[in-house]
């Protein structure tokens, strides 16, 4: 059993004490989102970049007035982009919107039904964004070769899916996640697929550096309670990984000594 020493989660030079990243989509309202965020202990929250509604009431608070970019790391995503060009354009808008903050979550989708990543466009976008001085956290498939390539391009974190976005199917291919982890020198964060607390624990027990989730919390009947469960699941999964689990055996191994019985 290999001995694992703890190392903090460092993304683009910033150290985070929480290994849970949450989203801001699908919540009933900003207040529920903020309550879940506070309960989860997450320090990073994703947002989407979209057109301002013309004719909207400017007195209504916007997301970033409720969830402060000074208190939390706002991670703008490129959700909805199906080409490298659209993703790069979205990141540039996000950087301007966030006063020059250059951390982004790159996702280039390939198919509306599965929301599976288009890895060739993802690679092209990653290269362009790194060249343009962005810090790129990249959503990708669980292909270990592509994950390594994205690291080599200069992405600051590689984020393979556990299952399709919003599916809640859990970590469907732990073997590939392990292969990715075994070769990685940047943080590996499972992004998408988590449905409930045990899924997050499984990702962390594999040795992932973090977990990113949105729907699992937002679509729970009680999102704030699920945020609490996810916080604990990520922490306990991490501790179990560091503790080093016992080997699996096909047969039993008695816990009580065999010697000294009196019968």
């Amino acid at each position, binding site marked *: 059993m290999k001995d694992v020493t703890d190392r903090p989660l460092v993304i683009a030079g910033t150290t985070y004490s929480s290994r849970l990243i949450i*989203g801001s*989509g*699908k919540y009933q309202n900003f207040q529920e989102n903020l309550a879940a965020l506070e309960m989860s202990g997450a320090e990073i929250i*994703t947002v*989407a970049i979209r*057109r301002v509604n013309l004719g909207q009431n400017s007195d209504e608070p916007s997301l970033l007035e409720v969830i402060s970019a000074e208190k939390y790391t706002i991670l703008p995503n490129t959700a909805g982009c199906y080409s490298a060009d659209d993703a790069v*354009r979205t990141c540039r808008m996000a950087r*301007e919107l966030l006063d020059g903050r250059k951390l982004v979550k790159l996702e280039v989708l390939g198919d509306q039904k599965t929301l599976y990543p288009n890895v060739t466009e993802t690679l092209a976008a990653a290269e362009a964004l790194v060249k343009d001085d962005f810090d790129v956290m990249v959503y990708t498939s669980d292909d270990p070769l592509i994950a390594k390539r994205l690291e080599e391009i200069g992405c600051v974190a590689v984020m393979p899916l556990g299952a399709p976005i919003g599916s809640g199917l859990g970590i469907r291919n732990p073997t590939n996640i392990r292969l990715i982890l075994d070769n990685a020198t940047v943080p590996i964060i499972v992004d998408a697929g988590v449905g409930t607390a045990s899924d997050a624990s499984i990702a962390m027990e594999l040795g992932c550096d973090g977990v990113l989730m949105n*729907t699992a919390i937002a679509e729970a009947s009680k999102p704030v309670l699920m945020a609490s469960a996810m916080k604990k699941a990520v922490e306990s999964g991490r501790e179990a990984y560091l503790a080093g689990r016992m080997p699996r055996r096909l047969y039993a191994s008695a816990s009580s000594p065999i010697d000294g019985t009196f019968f």
Partner: protein
Amino acid sequence: MHVTVNGEGLDLEKATSLQQLLAHLNIGEGRIAVELNGEIVAKSQISRQALVEGDKIEIVQAIGGG
């Protein structure tokens, strides 16, 4: 003067700056980003940016997403 804002055509009575357009649309200059004909307009340049016939303007904000 005709311009396109977030995909919608808009007729303006007279020559307008980008800042005047935002005020006309009741959009605060806080947490937004603006693109003019595909190029980002830096926040510091919004007040100085003039608009011309046919300009395409995109105004975006951060909303909930995963």
